[in-house]
């Protein structure tokens, strides 16, 4: 009889723990990196934002570059709605001078930070460019993945990042939290 109760208690604990873990969001650590002008940015600086969009991007990756104008449009459409956009360049062969020129050429109004030694890419486990992480003020990941589902802008069927931001701004939970797409490998230093 006792065994039966013990079994039920174990079962309830097991089920509850599953429910709790299913609702838990993965959290990222705060970090500080400099943009190409030398100005330091911390995630903690943007805690008042409704969402922080961290974008691992590149200057030479054709897939990342296919999204330059879409990133500008996203910034234009959402930055006044208290959404912060931060670009991060973790590629070892792309220096701050190149990042500055690339940002200027593509009229990026958001900062692009240089991640020397790909420390932050490692912490985020970012693999590809472009790769997006949308965080809340607690630095929990609300969305992780692609900007949309096609390198060819005219063939986009699912604007995943836009959908996630709209849901966050409407205080809804993000329906599709994880997506994937082809992109360029982040060129890491040997460690």
């Amino acid at each position, binding site marked *: 009889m006792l065994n039966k109760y013990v079994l039920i208690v174990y079962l309830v604990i097991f089920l509850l723990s599953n429910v709790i873990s299913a609702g838990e969001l993965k959290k990222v650590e705060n970090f500080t990196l400099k943009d190409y002008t030398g100005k330091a940015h911390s995630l903690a600086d943007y805690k008042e934002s409704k969402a922080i969009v961290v974008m691992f991007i590149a200057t*030479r990756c054709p897939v990342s570059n296919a999204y330059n104008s879409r990133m500008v449009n996203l910034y234009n459409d959402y930055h006044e709605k208290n959404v912060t956009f931060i670009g991060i360049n973790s590629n070892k062969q792309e220096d701050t001078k190149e990042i500055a020129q690339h940002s200027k050429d593509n009229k990026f109004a958001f900062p692009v930070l240089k991640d020397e030694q790909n420390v932050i890419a490692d912490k985020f486990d970012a693999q590809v460019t472009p*790769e997006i992480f949308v965080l809340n003020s607690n630095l929990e990941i609300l969305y992780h993945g692609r900007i949309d*589902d096609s390198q060819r802008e005219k063939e986009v069927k699912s604007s995943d990042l836009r959908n996630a931001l709209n849901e966050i701004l409407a205080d809804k939970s993000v329906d599709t939290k994880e997506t*994937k*797409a*082809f*992109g*360029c*490998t*982040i060129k890491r230093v040997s460690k």
Partner: protein
Amino acid sequence: MRIFFIFLTAFLLVLSCGADGKNDQNHQDIEDVDKKYLLVKTIDEKGLDSLLNNRHGKILLINVWATWCIPCREEFPDLVRLVDNYKNEKVDIIGISADYPDEIETKVIPFLKAQRVNFINFVQNFGKQEDFINKLNKDWRGALPTTFVYDANGKQQIYLLGKQSFKDFSQTIESIKKSL
């Protein structure tokens, strides 16, 4: 004057023969590429399943690449060398391009021709590229190039993220051969 014309004619003849010889050489280079490797088809989930399930006791390397991917282009000659090196062994090497199916004629085949390809290549056509990515490995985020290595039973043993060398590929194959 007559002697001058004889020399001029002889000189032009030599020159034209040389040019023909060079053209023949180029023509020969392209002809050397086995035509079956330039018949690039698309591959869907059913096709990939068939590839993975019918191993016939052979190790399989699937290299996922794209013409727009610079490290993929740099890595390709090592794959060609690898195929030559393992042609008498129970090892299959297959390429799957992440280019669009409508780019087969314009981008994929010209690239393969220039590389003097010696193995079968497909262009992925899963409908949703995410399904293709997850089919190969749920932990893979779609970064190119990536090479998936399967043992002779069709079980994935490892995936190699980013550009690899001939040595990296060979060592991986050899370690799988030892484990069999």
